[in-house]
């Protein structure tokens, strides 16, 4: 596709349930990122994938959060035993690997509401 796509666009779940969010990056982009945006706050880095290198997981807030990426394609972010504080918009971005600097292209986000 032309841009980064994410699904679902909205997800409402009950506290304690697991959720899985999906990101399809721009074709050919080797880097993929997940961010979280809580209401009234800036974007918070969660995890970074670059090719086959070990991901940077330093932004994951707890062990309930995990993410996977298959090669240089789709990524899934999983939140286990969701809590109300997990309610946020989860944004995915991808970028090509260019010398000198990389612009990140963002998807539309998944709005997660935990009741």
């Amino acid at each position, binding site marked *: 596709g032309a841009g980064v796509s994410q699904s679902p666009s909205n997800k409402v779940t009950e506290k304690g349930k697991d959720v899985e969010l999906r990101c399809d990056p721009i074709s050919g982009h080797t*880097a993929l*990122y997940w*961010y979280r945006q809580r209401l*009234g*706050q*800036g*974007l*918070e*880095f969660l995890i*970074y994938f*670059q090719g086959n*290198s*070990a991901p*940077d997981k*330093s*932004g994951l807030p707890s062990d309930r959060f995990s993410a996977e990426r298959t090669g240089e394609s789709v990524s899934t972010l999983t939140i286990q035993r969701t809590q109300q504080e997990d309610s946020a918009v989860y*944004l995915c*971005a991808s*970028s090509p690997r260019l010398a*000198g*600097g*990389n*612009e*990140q*292209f*963002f*998807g*539309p*986000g998944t709005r997660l509401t935990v009741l």
Partner: protein
Amino acid sequence: AQSVSQHNHHVILSEAASLELGCNYSYGGTVNLFWYVQYPGQHLQLLLKYFSGDPLVKGIKGFEAEFIKSKFSFNLRKPSVQWSDTAEYFCAVNAKSYNTDKLIFGTGTRLQVFP
């Protein structure tokens, strides 16, 4: 720790007024700097970026920003705003190291432009 500060949380202007949004960052390494914009109902998109060279960078829709290294600043400017500039604006710094390439975002500035 890396951080980005946006001093203006909410700015209200009339059309044709001049705009300057402040952004200061804290990061010891080589920086790439970005301004992203989120129009109502749309996803984040790049407004402009600084990687190297001329510290005055021009972006889309008449926006520009100046990188002042000595002040750790990257303020966004537009000489005459339009109603269509109503959006949320995010400043970000690219924190690059051997194992990561994440963006550190400010908390955003909500701009409202009235006709």
